[in-house]
Structures are given as C-alpha cells and as structure tokens.
C-alpha cells in the first residue's frame, strides 16, 4: 500500500510538471510583452528595461523556464528582492508574490467546495437511492423530473434569484460573503450558506440521477439476487450490499468534480463575490497577469491530481478486489 501511494504521488508529480511546462510555454511565449503590462500607463523606456531585467524577461524563453523551475525548488532573486522557495514569481499587477496570493485565496475555495460537497453528496445520493428503490412510483418520477430541472439550471441564474428571494426579500439567509473560519466560525458558515446551497442544488441533481442509475444497475447484479435468495430483508439488501456497487461511479465522478471545485468554482465565486481561486483566475486572465495564471493552473492541476489519488484510496476501501 505504501509503495502504491509513493508511486501514485510520483506519477502525480510528473503530471504536474507536464501541465506546468505546457502552461509556461503557452503563456510566456505569447506575443504580449509582459514587461509592458507590468509597467503600467506611465511607462518610460528606462523603467521598461529595468522591469524587464528584474523579471528576467531579457533572457531567452528556455532560460526563463529554467529559472522558474529553479525558483520553485530553490528560490530566486528578482532584482533586489529575494523570493524564497517555492517561488512562483510575482504578480505583474500588484507585485505580490504569487504563492502568497494563492495561499491567501485558497481557504475560501476550500470552504466553498467542501461545504457544498457535504450537502450535494448527502442529498443527491440519498434522493438517488430512494428513487431507485421506489422505481416507477410517483416519488421516483417527481424527484427525477425535479432533478432534470435542477441539472439544467445555471448557477448564475439560480444564484441571482435565490439571493433576491432568500436574502433580499425574505431575509432567511445572511448576505453571502467570505469570512475566515478562524476568525468567526458562525459568520463563515452564515456567509457561505447561500453559495453552498446554490452550488449544491445544481450538483445534487446530477448526483441524484447518477446514483439512481447506478443503484438500479447494482440491484440487478447477481450477487444482490443471491443476498435476496438468502432471505435477507430489503433494508439489509440495500444498505449492506447493493450500495457498494452503486457508489463506485459516484466516487469516480466526485473525484473529478472535487478536483474542478478546488481549482476554483469560477462561476459560483464570481456570482457571490467569494474571493477564491476561481475569482483570482478570472482577474488574472483579464489582466494578462501571467505569473498568476501559471500559479492558478498549477494549483488547479495539483487539486485534480490529489483528488485522483484520494479516489483510488477510496476505491480500495470500498472494493477488496482493488486492494493489494
């Protein structure tokens, strides 16, 4: 098991490296002159040259690439300031270290993703299971119709409406905002409630449909028939046996989903003005803030890869055939 994990992590590192390289060359090889972007409106040729040298842009692209990598592992100097390892460079826009910004924004994204996950997994899986058990009844049909609507609605649309009705009019929910958990747990929860629910609403619909389908498959499996032939009660059949087969596809899909969410739930974050990675990404792209874009891509890829490893570990827990 240990060896397995080490191998997976090494594989993950390789993937990250490739992702990084591709991003680097894609963005840094762009025709835009990063120095000019960084220089601002009142730009003289002298400052431009200075910035260029500070940022290392006067070097060839492979050299820049090399220095970036060295920076990640050993830190590097930008002009007068030293950026210690792991160094992802400085933002062109506000000249803050990229890593600090990312670390600053990540808790918001993490809070949003995990909180919403708890809700949509719980609700979605439960509805899907129920619908599968009561297949063909009004319960099944109505929840599935509802979930079809849920799955086709967009977050912007739902978010704006929900905010208007639940926050502005009825005042049932507090204003959506992000307060750090460490400072004010109650406020953290209250502020995120609406974003969680909105995100969960759309996702729960997807998981309900997925769970229903895979549960129906699982109920048709031979070994579930065997369990029934042994005289076990329906409850035992469902809760002890059938769900294991049904949950595997859910875990697979959630693994991908979690990776995406941790890389920044772009739409949700912009809709509710949550200062997370997603919003950061949008701003970085808008400003052509290349070091920041690279940083965001790296963190998104890391999240994906780690989520993948987690999924494999969960598989092994669920299914003994996967264990070593």
């Amino acid at each position, binding site marked *: 098991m240990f060896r397995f994990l080490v191998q997976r992590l090494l594989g993950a590192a390789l993937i990250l490296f490739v992702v990084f390289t591709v991003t680097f060359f894609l963005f840094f090889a762009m025709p835009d002159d990063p120095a000019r972007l960084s220089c601002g409106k009142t730009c003289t040729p002298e400052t431009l040259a200075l910035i260029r040298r500070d940022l290392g842009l006067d070097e060839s692209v492979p050299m820049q690439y090399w220095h970036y990598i060295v920076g990640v592992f050993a830190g590097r100097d930008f002009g007068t300031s030293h950026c210690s390892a792991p160094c992802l460079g400085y933002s062109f826009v506000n000249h803050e270290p990229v890593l600090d910004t990312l670390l600053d924004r990540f808790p918001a994204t993490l809070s949003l993703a995990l909180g919403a996950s708890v809700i949509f997994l719980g609700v979605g899986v439960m509805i899907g299971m129920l619908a599968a058990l009561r297949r063909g009844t009004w319960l099944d049909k109505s929840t599935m119709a509802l979930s079809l609507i849920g799955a086709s609605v967009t977050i912007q649309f739902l978010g704006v409406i929900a905010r208007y009705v639940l926050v502005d009019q009825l005042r049932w929910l507090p204003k959506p905002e992000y307060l750090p958990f460490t400072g004010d747990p109650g406020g953290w929860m209250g502020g995120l409630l609406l974003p969680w629910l909105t995100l969960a609403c759309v996702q729960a619909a997807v998981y309900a449909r997925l769970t229903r389908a895979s549960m129906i498959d699982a109920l048709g499996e031979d*070994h579930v028939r*065997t369990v029934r032939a*042994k005289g*076990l009660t329906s409850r035992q059949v469902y809760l002890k046996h059938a769900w*294991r087969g049904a949950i595997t596809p859910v875990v697979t899909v959630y693994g991908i989903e979690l990776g995406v969410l941790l890389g920044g739930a772009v739409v949700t974050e912009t809709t509710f003005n949550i200062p997370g990675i997603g919003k950061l990404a949008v701003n970085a792209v808008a400003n052509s803030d290349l070091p920041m874009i690279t940083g965001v891509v790296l963190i998104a890829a890391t999240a994906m890869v780690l989520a993948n490893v987690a999924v494999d570990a969960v598989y092994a827990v669920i299914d003994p*055939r996967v264990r070593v």
Partner: protein
Amino acid sequence: MTSPLLAVRDLRVRFATEGGVVKAVDGVSFDVERGRTLGIVGESGSGKSVTNLTLLGLHNPARTTVEGSAVLDGTELVGASERTLRDLRGQRVSMVFQDPLTALSPYYTVGAQIVETYRRHTGAGRREALDRAIEMLDRVGIPQAARRAREYPHLFSGGMRQRAMIAMALVCEPDLLIADEPTTALDVTVQAQILDLLGELQAQLGTAIILVTHDLGVVADVADEVLVMYAGRAVELGPATRVLETPKHPYTRGLLASVPRLSDPLDRPLRPVPGAPPSLLAPPPGCAFHPRCDQVIAGPGSPCRTRAPVLVGVGDSGHEAACHLEAGAGAAGVGSAERERERAQVPDAREGGKNP
C-alpha cells in the same frame, strides 16, 4: 405416500414487454419429493430459471403476472407475502446459481457471507455463526476452512467459489435446494466434483434438490425425476431412467438423438432437431414444438397445429408426456388423471381465442 415437499400446479408466468406479452412459463406442474432430485432440462429460454425464481418470489415483479399454485409443505408460495417468502428463503429453500464469480458478493469475505445467512435465520451469535460457517466450508471440501473463511471470493477458483456457494446455501439445512445450472460455468473435472459433493450432502442432510441444467448427461447422473421443458411448457415428466431410456415426446427424443455421447457407437450420426426454438412472444399455435417435429400429425385440422397438448400418463410409474401422439395411445396414469381435473378448471386463454 405422504404429500410431496413441493407441489407446483399450473404455474404461469407472463412478462409484459415492449414487444408484447412473453409467456415465459405456461402451465407447468410438477412435484418434488423429500430427499429426491428433480432435474429440469430444456434449451435456453425455455423457462427453467423463471420457474424457479418465481417459486421464491425472486423474479422482477414489475410488469409480471404469476398464476397457479406452488405449495411447499403446506405453504402456498404463489402470491405469498414478501415477509413469508423471506423467511423461507435461505432457511427452507436455498438457491445456488450458475456463475459463482458474480453470485457471491465481492465486497465481503466468504465467511461473512455465510455468517450473515446463518444469523438471519437462527439469530445465532457472531462467534457461533462463524464456527458454523467454517464447519460448512470444511464440509464442502475447502481446505484450511478457517483461513479461507477470511478471504474474499475473488481469491477463490471457480470450483472453490461454487463450493462456498453450496456451503452458504446449506448452512441452515434447508428442505429444498434449487441449483440453477450450478456446473455450467465449470470444467468437466470440477463439474464432476461438484455433482458428487451435492450427492453426498443430499445423502447426509436429506435435502431435496431441483437441478436445472441443459446437459442431459448431468441429469442422467444425478436426477431421480426429470422434467423436460420446451417454450415455457412441460413436455415430458417422469423418472429419470424412463425419460432418458424410453423418451415419449418427440422433442426429448430429438434432444437425445442430437447429443453425442461417449457411449455411442463410433459412427452414429447425429440427428439434429431441425429449426430453432420458437419466440415466446409469438409461439406457434397448438403444440409449440410442431414446426420442428418430424412426427407432426398431418392434415388441416391436425391437433398439433390447433390444440396445445397436455401431460398425459404414458405407461406406469408416473411417466407423462405432452404430445398428441401419446394422448390417443396412452392410458392416463393415476397421478395425472387428478392433475388433468385440476387443469380443466383453468382454461387456456390462448386456446379460447383460437378455437371456433
């Protein structure tokens, strides 16, 4: 003689499908005596599995109608509540399925799966149930049973898995074991082991067995009685030796003539049954076998083409065949006369529509 352990009368199972109504089982009657083995043979789709699954209510109930009667030791099974059936399953009637790889849960150890069955029906404690599970695994010939009980099924070979299935099915010492093609997925040498094992355990425990198979050789080896099914109907029923040595129904005869056997003279030609099994959505009118039958009664008003034959006694000892050729010739046996009367009360819907 006392009443049989299981008495099935005029069992009918229909599935409503998109293409129409499938008469998967169309009026089947048979008895299973205590401690005896009934072999059910028939081609793919002839209704063998459906017959057995509906006995225990394990079929998919959606769009399915089950009619007729099946009495297990005084308890009516057709239409019984889920609760009643659940208490019977695994305790008084157990099942063993064809593919032991998919029939055992991959998520629990072999021991845990047996323990679960035993505790469900006896309320035994964990420890006691585990001891019992290990004892059963040992009894079905799994070496190092205590260790193997802690392993998952995927670590077992095919034969070992089927042994574990049998151990699980017999853990509560049921009166009836329904084995649906238990050896079809296994090699011949392993098949022989499993059949021997079933015979030994039957002798020790007095369990009655319904053995579903398409292999006439298997039936010849282990069955006391044989039921031959064709297109959802019973075409021949009787003691195994009679049915296999003096088959009366043209289908049974055709089946026997078409299967090569080791005891044949070296150059016996195979005489295949021509044609293919019928569609159950639109079965041929009259005797479902008539389009493939070489002895079909000729003429426009031929009973073969218009009326479905019912089982009638052919000779003594309960040998019966459902063929118009026999209906005229054979004197009805005692058992079948009684069944005939019961059957008369259930008019055949399809016939009613066809006959002027």
